[in-house]
């Protein structure tokens, strides 16, 4: 596959030229943070960011999605028949996704696309998405991707990776899908060895800039019931206010709730992101709630990511080390601290 070089202006111009063939999402600076936005002629993308506030997970798995619709009009011959709401799987490209967030989609994929279950909308949307990663020259102090199987230039889950070399992007296709996308852009020149070497050296040096880590090596061998009953949960959970910041900002949280909304005689069945931090998450129809206490909910979040997932999929932890929950938790509950408590725990 051919690695290309684009000046930054060329790159944006080339993307704008391809916006009829693909829906292209790019990082744009809002007031205080960056978010992925659909590219239009007016879009001014900003690639000078550490990471977007929200991960681009919602572009594959929307926060709210209409699944089905139905009529409650008895005069309608098809009343009460639930029909799939037409979905849009137009090809899309997420340009500037950080390697941790692409890695995260792979971690979520085992839930939505496995031999037992296939979530048709997740599968089709991921298939129709091209992930053009932007390697991290300057990882944050709260990033710990390298200890969870990723890295600032990890290619896992990406179709293309961009190396930011100040004036130019080195654009390296990783999959066939990625190469097709780059060819369609039609511009850029072949990368020479000097620039390729420079990109590699920069990527290597950024690896050392990831200074934070979580220990995970001993999680697999812990007895799940012992960890569950560990004495530290009460202390970990004290400060938690049970908001959904950690779960909604997390690129690997996949839980959803299904709701019916009816207006007049028209009904929609919608799925919405849900959060295990909310008491409603586990409230049963009988009124019983197996996780009525906040300590139980906090424990669930960490046990799911750092123990149940580890045991079930045997592919490491359900965390890509993006550090969002560390940075934005309003009460500073830090997964790096909790992982250490869990990993070091001895009965």
């Amino acid at each position, binding site marked *: 596959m051919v690695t290309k070089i684009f000046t930054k202006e060329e790159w944006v111009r080339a993307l704008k030229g391809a916006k009829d063939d693909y829906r292209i999402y790019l990082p744009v600076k809002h007031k205080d943070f960056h978010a992925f936005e659909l590219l239009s002629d007016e879009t001014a993308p900003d690639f000078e960011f550490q990471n977007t506030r929200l991960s681009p997970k919602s572009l594959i798995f929307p926060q709210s999605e209409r699944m089905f619709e139905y009529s409650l009009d008895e005069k309608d011959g098809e009343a009460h028949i639930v029909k799939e709401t037409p979905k849009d799987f137009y090809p899309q490209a997420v340009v500037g996704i950080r390697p941790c967030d692409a890695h995260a989609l792979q971690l979520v994929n085992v839930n939505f696309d496995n031999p037992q279950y296939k979530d048709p909308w997740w599968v089709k949307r991921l298939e129709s998405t091209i992930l053009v990663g932007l390697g991290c020259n300057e990882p944050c*102090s709260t990033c710990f991707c390298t200890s969870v199987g990723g890295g600032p230039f990890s290619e896992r889950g990406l179709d293309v990776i961009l190396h930011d070399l100040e004036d130019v992007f080195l654009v390296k296709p990783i999959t066939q899908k990625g190469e097709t996308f780059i060819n369609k852009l039609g511009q850029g020149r072949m990368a020479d060895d000097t620039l390729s070497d420079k990109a590699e050296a920069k990527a290597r040096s950024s690896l050392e800039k990831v200074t934070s880590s979580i220990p995970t090596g001993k999680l697999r061998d812990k007895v799940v019931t012992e960890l569950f009953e560990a004495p530290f949960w009460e202390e970990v959970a004290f*400060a938690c206010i049970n908001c959904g910041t950690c779960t909604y900002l997390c690129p690997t949280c996949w839980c959803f*709730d299904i709701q019916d909304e009816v207006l007049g005689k028209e009904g929609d069945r919608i799925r919405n992101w849900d959060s295990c931090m909310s008491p409603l998450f586990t409230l049963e129809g009988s009124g019983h709630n197996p996780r009525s206490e906040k300590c139980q909910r906090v424990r669930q979040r960490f046990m799911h990511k750092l123990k149940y997932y580890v045991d079930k999929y045997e592919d490491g932890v359900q965390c890509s080390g993006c550090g969002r929950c560390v940075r934005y938790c309003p009460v500073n509950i830090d997964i790096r601290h909790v992982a250490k408590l869990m990993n070091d725990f001895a009965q």
Partner: protein
Amino acid sequence: MPEYETKIREIAKGLLEDGKADVIIGYKKGSIPMVNEPVLIRDPNNVENLIWDSHCALNLCNYLTGRKERIGIIANGCNSRNIVTHIVENQIKREQLYIIGIPCTGMIDHRAVKRAVNDREILAVEESEGRFTVRGKDFEKTFEKKDFLQTNCAVCLHPNPVVYDEMVGENVKIPEGINPFKDVEEIERMSAREKWSFFADLVSPCIRCYACRNACPLCYCPTCFVDESDPQWVGKSIDPTDTMTFHFLRAYHCAGRCTDCGACERACPVGIPVRHFTKKLNKDALDLFSWEAGLSLDQRPPLDVYRVDDYNDFVE
């Protein structure tokens, strides 16, 4: 503020050792700059973890609801007013509490600081005598704290605790000539249409994580109206109507109770200035009922009392 910290630790240690309190609720230093973690301390040997600086912005009154033990709690002006509200609303008993009062000089708006360093990552913050210094990889900058106060702290008229058992320092001077409702007045001048679009824009980034609600000490309902499922009052998607319904209704539930502590705004992960909703209601409570929340243990909030001699004519 090291002098406060020494005093806080001393009092906390004494309370635990003498058995006057079973637990102490305070803050410990956070793992990242400009965020501290609320902490519960039972062991007198752990009081060294207690701190006080300009990043203690999450309202500790949240952690009182329904507790049964005797609690030592640190409280500045707004936190103490929420404690009063909690006592008046029967969420905690005054006898259970030993309130360590803190004269407050305000909290630093971490978002404003990040803006001031062009969003570069801040790795360390130090403060002393009204100034603070932030450090990052290749920068160091010193600012005046007064220029970077949280927007609620910048207009605070009650920095000193209104109820306490012991103070850690002298009361701070109450600032003069501050109009706390300047921003509300600007919105009041808008037309209905302008207001609608102003508030629609304001809540548009909302992800319904409920951090604002959960950070609010007033929001202690066993089941919030947005979580009711039978009947379900509000849709759970991110449809703008539902999101606005949540914000508007929550604000109304805080009318005459909000102390403008700013915890809601501080907690919001997407930076929505949530106080724009509650402040108008604070202003109304002041204009209509001469009422500011949480100043007295002997008076109930205006919206949950009935008086035969009410001067408004709707009583008749």
